[in-house]
């Protein structure tokens, strides 16, 4: 694509040759938001591969009835570590990574508001993750009982009490997540302060890119939702280490308190995880439809609405514990209410595409995949919000299929779109379209092959977290198909990994602005210099690069 000269452009600097120890030092000691963002994303991808392999082992175990791949104890550890890793060590650093790399570039700033706090956030997150995985070695404790945590990612009481969780595995779980949570809080405060205080001249809140808006609300949710989990984990550690009685029913404590605290965190958390997807789609779909985002004020309103309503729906995870009819009604209604702003978002993305000149490049294909999968996920979510329906299917594979539709079909697809879209900015090279299409179609086929059938095996009564089943339950075919689908997904991810490694060396040179985009990150070189912009930009509309490329028909005339 022909590159246009921007006044903000500067010639690319040649990288100086460094020895390995020098470059290692420069990465460890860096406070640059782009490097920290990259380190977040790369460590998230590594944890994704680890937890993905765990998922594969789980699927292999369940492929045939009476499976013998792993034993029941190992199986418990596998699904616990799979869930915990995916949520806290893949999803959360993806939030931090994408917002770290892109928010300062998009708002025309030179770095985050608190660069050193930013570095602290990354390293404390990584330390927390390693602490969790160290449980494989140290989790046995002095008695040698247990290894990695095996209490489920939600760690319900009283299973986590000393009597039922011997050894130190559960303590590692609580400490590791508590510590990495501190990193998430640091990063969220940083994003908020950056967005509020470092916008370049002219970028009022209404002219801020949708991506930044979503990440701002996401950070707000992190600040409100994570402390309840931290509080619960502090209480759990007090119970286990100091003999406190928070969740000990024999002393009058309540196991339900844990569930409330956990889900006060847990439900906003699913929005925290899906928000980067919303942010990415709101940037990618307009660029590849050649139309500005449809109804941006409504989009902002919707995302802020989710940022508040999602704080009041947590107990829909707890319909089965026997709450009062009034509580059930309230939380069912609130859960359906939160579907409304989500519906607004799906409608607006579709309306952005409607009548546009759509380019079906790989990022756009992943966005289309997101829209379809997320619609299904939203609909099964509404089904589960109906309390009596939930009583039927609580803790069944229907629930597993529902949230994997949001997290793989939704989040992973959107993250793929984001990585294909911004890879040229980060590396200066384009990812291969051909390999990208392979990974897209393989992922679509593999994902749907795994998770559409799992809805039905849930209807047929297969509960979550069982390590095997007998052959006469009628679940055999579905589980076999789902496991084959999991293998296809693994091939798709391998395809993507190969694409990244190949394109880093041999990819086509991207130039500064390969997609003919409108936001400020494309106004600097690829990769951007350490200071981002030589001269801080001044913007006058929501699409500053459109104004530069079309001086006779700029956006600000109409805003």
């Amino acid at each position, binding site marked *: 694509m022909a590159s246009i000269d921007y006044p903000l452009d500067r010639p690319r600097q040649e990288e100086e040759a460094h020895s390995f120890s020098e470059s290692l030092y420069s990465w460890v000691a860096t406070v640059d938001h782009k490097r920290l963002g990259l380190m977040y994303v790369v460590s998230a991808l590594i944890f994704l591969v680890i937890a993905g392999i765990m998922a594969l082992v789980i699927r292999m175990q369940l492929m045939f009835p009476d499976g013998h791949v792993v034993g029941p104890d190992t199986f418990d550890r596998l699904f616990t570590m799979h869930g915990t890793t995916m949520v806290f060590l893949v999803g959360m650093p993806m939030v931090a990574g994408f917002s770290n790399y892109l928010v300062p570039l998009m708002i025309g700033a030179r770095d985050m*508001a*608190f660069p050193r706090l930013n570095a602290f956030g990354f390293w404390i997150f990584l330390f927390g993750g390693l602490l969790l995985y160290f449980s494989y070695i140290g989790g046995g404790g002095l008695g040698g009982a247990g290894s990695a945590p095996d209490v489920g990612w939600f760690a319900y009481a009283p299973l986590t009490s000393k009597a039922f969780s011997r050894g130190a595995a559960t303590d590692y779980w609580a400490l590791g997540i508590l510590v990495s949570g501190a990193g998430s*809080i640091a990063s*969220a*405060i*940083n994003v*908020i*302060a*950056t967005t*509020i*205080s*470092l*916008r370049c*001249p*002219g970028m009022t809140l209404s002219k801020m890119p949708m991506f930044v808006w979503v990440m701002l609300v996401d950070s707000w949710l992190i*600040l*409100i939702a*994570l*402390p*309840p989990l*931290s*509080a*619960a984990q*502090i*209480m759990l550690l*007090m119970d286990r280490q*100091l*003999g*406190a*009685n*928070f969740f000990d029913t024999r*002393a*009058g*404590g*309540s196991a339900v*308190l844990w569930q409330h*605290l956990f889900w*006060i965190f847990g439900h906003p958390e699913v929005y925290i995880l899906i928000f980067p997807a919303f942010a990415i789609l709101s940037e990618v779909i307009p660029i590849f439809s050649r139309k500005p985002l449809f109804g941006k004020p409504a989009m902002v309103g919707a995302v802020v609405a989710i940022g508040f309503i999602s704080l009041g729906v947590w107990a829909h995870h707890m319909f089965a514990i026997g709450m009062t009819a009034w509580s059930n009604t309230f939380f069912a209604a609130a859960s359906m209410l939160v579907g409304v702003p989500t519906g607004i978002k799906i409608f607006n993305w579709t309306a952005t595409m409607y009548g546009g000149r759509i380019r079906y490049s790989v990022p756009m294909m992943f966005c289309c995949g997101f829209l379809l999968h997320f619609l299904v996920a939203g609909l099964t979510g509404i089904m589960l919000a109906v309390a009596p329906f939930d009583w039927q299917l609580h803790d069944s594979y229907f629930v597993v299929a529902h949230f994997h539709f949001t997290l793989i079909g939704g989040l992973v697809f959107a993250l793929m779109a984001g990585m294909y879209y911004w890879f040229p900015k980060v590396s200066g090279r384009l990812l291969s379209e051909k390999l990208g299409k392979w990974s897209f179609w393989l992922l679509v086929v593999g994902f749907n092959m795994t998770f559409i059938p799992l809805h039905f095996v849930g209807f047929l009564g297969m509960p979550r977290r069982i390590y095997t089943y007998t052959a006469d339950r009628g679940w055999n075919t579905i589980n076999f198909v789902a496991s084959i689908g999991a293998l296809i997904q693994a091939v798709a991810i391998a395809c993507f990994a190969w694409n990244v490694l190949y394109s880093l060396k041999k990819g086509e040179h991207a130039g500064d602005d390969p997609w003919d985009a409108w936001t400020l990150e494309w106004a600097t070189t690829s990769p951007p210099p350490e200071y981002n912009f030589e001269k801080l930009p*001044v913007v*006058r509309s929501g699409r500053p690069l459109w104004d530069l490329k079309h*001086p006779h028909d700029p956006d600000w005339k109409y805003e």
Partner: protein
Amino acid sequence: MANEEILTVDALTLERHWTLPDRGKVGIVFLIITESVLFSMFVAAYLIYLGKSLVGPYPKDVLDVPILATICLLSSSLTVYLAEHALSKNELGRFKFWWIVTICLGLEFLMATGLEWKKLIYEDHLTISTNLFGTTFYSLVGLHASHVTVGMIFLLVVLAVTLMGFPIQTQFRRVLFLSWYWHFVDAVWVVVFTVVYIIGR
């Protein structure tokens, strides 16, 4: 190209009149918000478990209202404001005086908490594992006391560098944000005091 010139002039005026909130203020405000959520969870746990202890000792038997400590902590909010105000006027002597008073008041509060815990543990045999009252009392009051301790460490650092001759007035923003944190810790005490020593008894 007249159009472009107009654009540049506009851009320059825009740049000159472009002011945004101080990033430090935003940071400390949102830190306080997230800390408030953490505290509210422990307050909620305290209220939920109020009167649910299966065995004694109970709050009304063993808790004394810490009036002196409360007066000390609350008035330290005023003294830290006086110190910060003096620093904004560049009156270093007055700053040092009020800063030291703040530290003394904070230390008195921490000492009172320590003595209260000593009495509860050794005389009343109330520990964190005795009953739900012990569990929730020590965790809530302990969480607050640990925040006071952190604030105290920062106050002492500021005092130390000031006495060593560091020109603290160059760091006025940071002193200001520290004083906001201190006000927050005081405000939390009002809630903890109400819940533990008034409603709780």
